[in-house]
């Protein structure tokens, strides 16, 4: 794991003091609310429906047990004893007092954490593959590149007042576990025929009200030019991204309106210019960062035997553990989707338990998944039963990774001031319904994603099944979408037809799964069947 040196620490400490000073000037009336808003947003503070929300950065989703303990302490001390893990691999606290914010940031800085640029029109916290460093299929661990970009983008003087927010994801395998092509910039670290590493740049993806899949604008940027290329992409955006209309201000609109070819031409021109400007870090810095991400000392002779005599345990192993590059190890997913629960929420007690289990069983490392679950990346198979037993006792043993119960849901109308409809109760009712009918297991992989408004924080465009909350004459109404994917087979979901009320939407989800069960061929996932048979059979079943 990356560790701060005195420089990183000094920067984070300076940021805490800066925010304290800004809050003071706001109180003294030297800053208007309009002037203060972007400053607090760049420190992760949002004003929601009932209170302030604080979003804490978890760079590339990686943290250690000390940090998870600190997050639990913040939940207890400053919030209501829980936190919410987000689709950007961060954590949010929903009941924060503005006057506590600087103290919370100071607490975070003591464990090498912060809330820098987790909101606002700047480069946001950089996300990555939650199985980085553990996945058998990666070319290399993508996180050093994400860390390099974290440093580059932190307090970047030119890119602090972009037209709109800017999200970057970095992966390093053909399997996309980070929704890479639905980011403003998606980077895939690749290897060329000569065995050299480089970065493929995908620019202009995103969800929101105009979802777009990012085109590849350069399939191999040498690693010693990575930062310069990113800088060129951003400069063209900062200069020419639309500022006349908030809803057309993301880079996807610029790339779309210019055309990928013209955008690429402008980036290449800027890139050629910037190469002369010496903005690239010394390559030794990348090498320094890499040393923090070396493999832990895996036991060479770790046993691959698992005692499957307990069927509940065996089901959890089948569902929630994922193949690891080291023999005798797996990555274990802790589901934050208990039946009827709030997707992504964890209590302080649960956070502490997960932290302790990470220390005991996973080389002191945890990951946040964009699907709002937690990963213990490196667990010996021999330890799985003990791990599962502890999780199960704490209500963290739900065996439902990637199933219809593993729902992504945005905060929706329970918290969010932009929402049209509630997301959380819909997620709760759906997981309860499927748990009750017992169909979860037979439906296999089925990614269901719910957003409470068109801003799409719940990734509904990318759900095999997506649900979008809308406002219909003052009543919450839910549109159903089918056929999206955020993975390497990326696609955008399509609306089935007229929406449903909050009960009807649960029935509608069940109906489309029934069509799938009837129509599926061997080995097909819901998404595969949909792609083969198209929308019509689903429509007929829904609207008949």
């Amino acid at each position, binding site marked *: 794991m990356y560790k701060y040196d005195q420089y990183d620490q000094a920067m984070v400490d300076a940021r805490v003091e800066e925010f304290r000073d800004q809050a003071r000037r706001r109180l003294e009336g030297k800053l208007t609310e309009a*002037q203060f808003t972007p400053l607090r947003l760049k420190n992760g503070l949002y004003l929601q429906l009932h209170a302030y929300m604080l979003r804490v950065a978890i760079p590339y989703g990686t943290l250690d047990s000390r940090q998870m303990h600190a997050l639990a302490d913040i939940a207890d001390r400053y919030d209501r004893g829980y936190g919410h893990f987000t689709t950007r691999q961060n954590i949010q606290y929903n009941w924060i007092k503005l006057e506590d914010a600087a103290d919370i940031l100071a607490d975070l800085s003591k464990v090498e954490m912060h809330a820098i640029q987790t909101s606002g029109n700047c480069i946001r916290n950089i996300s990555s593959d939650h199985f980085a460093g553990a996945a058998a299929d990666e070319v290399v661990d993508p996180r050093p590149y994400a860390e390099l970009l974290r440093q*580059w983008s932190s*307090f970047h003087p*030119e890119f602090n*007042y972009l037209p709109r927010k800017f999200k970057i994801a970095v992966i390093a395998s053909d399997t996309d576990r980070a929704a890479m092509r639905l980011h403003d910039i998606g980077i895939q670290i690749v290897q060329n025929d000569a065995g050299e590493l480089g970065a493929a740049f995908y620019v202009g993806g995103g969800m929101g009200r105009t979802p777009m899949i990012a085109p590849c604008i350069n399939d191999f940027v040498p690693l010693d030019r990575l930062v310069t290329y990113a800088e060129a992409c951003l400069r063209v955006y900062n200069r020419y991204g639309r500022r006349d209309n908030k809803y057309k201000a993301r880079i996807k609109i610029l790339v779309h309106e210019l055309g990928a070819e013209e955008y690429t031409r402008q980036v290449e021109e800027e890139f050629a210019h910037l190469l002369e400007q010496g903005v690239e870090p010394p390559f030794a*810095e990348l090498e320094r960062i890499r040393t923090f991400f070396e493999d832990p000392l895996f036991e060479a002779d770790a046993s691959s035997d698992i005692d499957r005599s307990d069927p509940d345990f065996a089901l959890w192993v089948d569902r929630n553990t994922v193949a690891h590059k080291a023999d005798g190890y797996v990555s274990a997913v802790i589901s934050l989707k208990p039946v009827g629960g709030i997707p992504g929420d964890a209590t302080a007690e649960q956070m502490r338990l997960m932290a302790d289990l990470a220390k005991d069983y996973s080389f002191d490392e945890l990951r946040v998944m964009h699907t709002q679950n937690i990963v213990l990346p490196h667990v010996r198979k021999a330890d799985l039963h003990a791990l599962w037993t502890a999780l199960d006792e704490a209500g963290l043993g739900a065996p439902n990774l990637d199933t219809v119960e593993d729902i992504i849901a945005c905060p929706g109308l329970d918290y969010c001031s932009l929402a049209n409809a509630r997301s959380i109760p819909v997620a709760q009712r759906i997981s309860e319904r499927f748990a009750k009918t017992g169909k979860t297991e037979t439906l296999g992989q089925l990614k269901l994603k719910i957003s409470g408004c068109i801003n799409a924080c719940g990734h509904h465009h990318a759900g095999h099944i997506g649900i979008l909350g809308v406002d219909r004459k003052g009543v919450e109404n839910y549109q159903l979408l089918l056929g999206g994917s955020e993975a390497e087979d990326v696609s955008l979901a399509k609306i089935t037809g007229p929406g449903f009320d909050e009960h009807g939407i649960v029935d509608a989800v069940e109906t489309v799964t029934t069509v799938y069960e009837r129509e599926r061929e061997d080995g097909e996932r819901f998404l595969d069947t949909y792609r083969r048979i198209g929308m019509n059979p689903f429509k007929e079943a829904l609207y008949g």
Partner: protein
Amino acid sequence: MAELLRYRDDETVDHPAVTVDAFLDQSNASAVRIEPGDDARDLLPHLERVALVEVNFPAFGDGRGYSSARILREAGYDGELRAVGDVLVDQLAYMRRCGFDAFEPDQQLDKGDVQAAFDRWPEVYQPAADDRTPIWTKRHS
């Protein structure tokens, strides 16, 4: 209009800045004002006759002027680069890093707050148009 904050030793240019269009038409103008939608690169062929570039920030949230400033400095412009308009304390340090060396804010800024803003950052992560050495260079020198 508030007091001009200036971090240069040379004489202040005393003639008014003209628009980019007027500047390109008038061969004798030496002060020019860039609006957010102007392309700073249009000035590059004429830099030798420019002594003052004002970059206007009609609203502080429009960050195009930061790129304009860096582009001019990257091209070797060493005359005065003045941020004018909705220039606030919390933007100053970033503007300075992008090459601005003078500030003419619409609203008077508190002197102590200005000094605190410039003293805020002990280090910088990335190179820009100032002469500060980035952390990643210090780590390996």
